[in-house]
């Protein structure tokens, strides 16, 4: 007698969950977890890309030497005022977080996160080579600095522009819908196309910006080769490129805000800027946090803009971490050292993910 098929394959909820999760876990494990641990493993070796491909025995275990060669140097000392500006900002940050916590203006986690960031800002820039000393890799920390500067400019740039656009384009008219699509369009382009467009825009000879400058009697700026403008140029291109997603997130957030609030405010004569400031912004707090943290994690991985528009120049002023990793791995074939830098980048991005987790939880309480 045939058994009822439903009975035969009856699974408990837990079993069903495992079965359904299995495809995801397999792909996740194979393409993310395994390569990650392999990367950490490679970072502990002297591993030449080409040599190991032809002779698997050509690698040698070196422990943490790659990390030392990348991040440390000879005769590195610490000084409380080695780079005064950053360290003083760090000190002020420590005091501020203590003050905010004491006066009850910041929650415990917020104050703690701020405090940790401030302490790091005080401690880390204090390291410098002493007499007769030098960094083993004199370009690594400046490259990290450039990456942070890029993130520091691009993230507020994207967030503010996207927020303003979203607020302006939130509505049901056809014009607004068309404009929303237009602003999102740049997001779907690949980095090669985006950088090509902006290289032409910034070109001092044929570029739109140069033509406009000349029209108003100015001398065109050579954006991509001038030290003061190259970083700005890749930030501008990045903002234009990554507006779309942030704008969509903000639009979703805006649509969650009840119309009643605006109507009530309108009765009190609060419209336009006032309504934006007192109703829209506070209600979007959570969306803003999400957008900012996502953007931070995304932009730490900047590569194409720097690689294709400025080649990291001039004088390394737009050299960023992922490009340095790429060059070390593929140009210099030094996979071990490149993996050590990649692990460092992972730690930075990982700490921002934790931050998002912490901030998200605090809001729930």
């Amino acid at each position: 007698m045939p058994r009822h098929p439903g009975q035969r394959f009856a699974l408990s909820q837990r079993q069903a969950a495992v079965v359904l999760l299995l495809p995801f876990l397999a792909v996740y494990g194979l393409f993310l977890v395994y390569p990650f641990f392999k990367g950490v493993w490679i970072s502990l070796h002297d591993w030449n890309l080409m040599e190991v491909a032809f002779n698997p025995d050509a690698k040698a275990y070196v422990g943490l030497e790659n990390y030392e060669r990348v991040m440390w140097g000879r005769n590195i000392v610490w000084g409380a005022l080695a780079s005064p500006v950053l360290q003083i900002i760090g000190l002020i940050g420590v005091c501020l977080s203590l003050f905010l916590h004491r006066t009850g203006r910041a929650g415990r986690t917020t104050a703690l996160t701020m405090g940790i960031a401030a302490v790091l800002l005080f401690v880390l820039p204090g390291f410098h080579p002493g007499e007769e000393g030098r960094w083993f890799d004199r370009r690594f920390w400046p490259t990290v600095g450039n990456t942070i500067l890029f993130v520091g400019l691009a993230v507020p740039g994207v967030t503010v522009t996207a927020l303003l656009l979203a607020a302006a384009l939130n509505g049901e008219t056809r014009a607004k819908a068309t404009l929303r699509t237009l602003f999102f369009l740049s997001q779907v382009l690949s980095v090669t196309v985006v950088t090509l467009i902006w290289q032409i825009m910034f070109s001092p000879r044929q570029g739109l910006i140069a033509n406009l400058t000349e029209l108003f009697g100015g001398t065109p700026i050579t954006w991509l080769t001038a030290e003061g403008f190259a970083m700005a140029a890749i930030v501008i291109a990045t903002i234009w490129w990554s507006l779309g997603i942030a704008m969509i997130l903000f639009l979703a957030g805006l649509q969650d805000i009840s119309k009643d609030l605006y109507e009530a405010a309108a009765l009190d004569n609060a419209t336009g800027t006032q309504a934006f400031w007192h109703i829209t912004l506070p209600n979007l707090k959570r969306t803003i946090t999400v957008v900012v943290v996502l953007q931070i994690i995304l932009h730490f991985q900047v590569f194409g803009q720097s690689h294709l528009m400025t080649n990291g120049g001039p004088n390394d002023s737009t050299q960023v971490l992922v490009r340095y990793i790429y060059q070390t791995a593929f140009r210099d074939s030094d996979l071990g050292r490149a993996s050590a830098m990649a692990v460092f980048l992972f730690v930075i991005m990982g700490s921002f993910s934790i931050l998002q987790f912490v901030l998200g939880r605090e809001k729930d309480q």
Partner: protein
Amino acid sequence: MKRTILGATALLLAVTGATAQEVTVGRFFGDCEDAGTDTKASVGEACIIQSIINAADAELDGVTVETLPTDWGNYYDQIKAAYAGGTPPDVHVMHRHRVPEFAGIGALADLTDDLENAGIDPADWEASALEAVSYNGRIVGVPMDFHANLWHVNMDLMEAAGLVENGAPVLPSSPEELLEHAQAVKDATGQDYLAADFAQFPLGVRMVLALIWQQGSNVFDGDTATIDTPEARNAIAAVTQLFDAGLANPQLNYADSQQAFLNGEAAILVNGTWVVDFYASEAANPETGLSTYHAADFPTLFAEGATWADSHMWAIPSPLKANDPETYAAALQVLAFINDHNIDWARTGHMAVRTSVLESDAYAALPHRDEYAGTAEIARDTPPSERYGAIQDVLNRELQAIWLTGKSVDGALSDAELDVQDLLDR
């Protein structure tokens, strides 16, 4: 519609599938759409090489050739990643300066004993071409050209400044004269004397290197970096004096500097042999600012003649020879075809590698060829090194820092010396 696609696919399979041996080709030189198969009509590096490859695909029996998409700027990264992943193209182009890096670990097939059978005669290659493709006494590639830095000249601007004698440009013989000539051009025409890519690719590096070699010095010697030297300072000063006097603009990249020259805004463009045919065809175009074009040897500003030079060559990965004799044989046929078309490749402006081609009338008749006949004599490069690419990048970064960001020459040279020493020590 579906039926059409199926039919077309079936037809395609019937035509190419059964017998043809497919050879994949990796190359730089840029893209050329519709290169055709006429190797005599195409213009510019990209189109000439693609027309040769297309002709090989059409004319070689039982061999189809497929050009893989590659990007010039990241070519070696791509090729190395392909080698590391075990999927290199069956045939690929490379520079002579990369031979130590690739052949040093046994990545390139030893072609020495197979060339003759494939119809390639190494005895016809110039001695220096044979040397370029040899590693430890074995032949690991088929040379395609010598290329070098030239001075491309706008004769109208030079004429206006009184710098033409007997139909040839008068070029400087010392750094002081360089400045005088530059000033003369500025005074007579208001245009810059010299343009080059000082801001993107290492063309400025190659110019400074030539001036260092002209003084009998070099940037490294064996395992020792020798960058922070009086010779390097002289070489850099010869270039920066033009920037300081406003007679050249360091901020132009490759495309912009070329455009400046073609617009008639610079009397000299320092660039390679690869653009001679392109500039000649642009000069013939009445719409471009450049109308009288001349190609000249890189002038000697110091004691001895020297200009940066390199070679393009074709190689086959060693795993292909070891594991797939049929494709290897087909790949050799493709190399033989390219070798047979050395004269066509020389139309770009590059110097040929085969004695029979160099001595031919067709070669002598190529436009502007006689104007830079001295270049082969003065061709130079840095010593062979597995770190060539990284060393070039260091020099490019530090030299650009000098003229683009005002970094002190002392600071840049000592940083460059440290960085290159680090690379040599690795």
